[in-house]
């Protein structure tokens, strides 16, 4: 099990009802973390439209998560 802090933004924050939470997860990658939070909060956004970062650095959905990481979950962006 790993302890991971998850931060939610925009629509994800509204779905979760919180800015962030610390979870104990059996997660290998950012995709595992994302799916665990979706199960938890009932969101169904496909990961392909979303972005992810680990400790303030952009990452991929197969990036490995280590104990103590902060994973940032970004719903589809819409700047401009």
């Amino acid at each position, binding site marked *: 099990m790993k302890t991971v802090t998850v931060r939610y*933004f*925009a*629509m994800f924050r*509204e779905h979760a009802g919180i800015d962030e939470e610390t979870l104990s997860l059996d997660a290998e990658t950012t995709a595992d973390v994302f799916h665990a939070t979706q199960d938890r909060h009932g969101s169904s*956004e*496909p990961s*392909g*439209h979303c*972005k992810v*970062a680990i400790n*303030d650095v*952009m990452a991929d959905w197969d990036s490995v998560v280590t104990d103590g990481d902060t994973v*940032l979950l*970004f*719903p*589809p*962006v*819409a*700047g*401009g």
Partner: protein
Amino acid sequence: METPCCCFHRLRAVDVIELTTSAIRPDELRARLFDPAAGAYCGFEGWIRNHNEGQSVLRLEYEAYEPLALTEGEKILEEAKSQFPHLRAHCVHRTGLLEIGECAVWVGVSAPHRDEAFQACRYIIDQLKVRLPIWKKEHYVDGHSGWVNCERCAKSA
């Protein structure tokens, strides 16, 4: 009005991206790009419009994750500068609540010739829109609201 020759001697920050909650003033920003070696300037302003996908929009709300919006924005400017020699580029994006007609994003570049200026400006705005962690929520005339590209992401993908 300041003339370009004054601005050559007191340039302010350029080649950076900024986020702001204040009104964007393109004329002031444009002056930062004056360069005696530049023969072309190209600017893009993104405005808040009153409709989107058939809905009447009252106002927009922008949210950004600033640390990564700035580092990703700087990467995009660096990419543009490596593609187009002697380019100067600057970008400002608003956050918070914006009304119809306000400028939400401004990109300005100067370059030796117009072709590079047009291409670089287009490259920067296109990349900003798909890469920066910035989200917008539309508030509609009928009272409801929605995150752009999220609830309708299947359609817009």
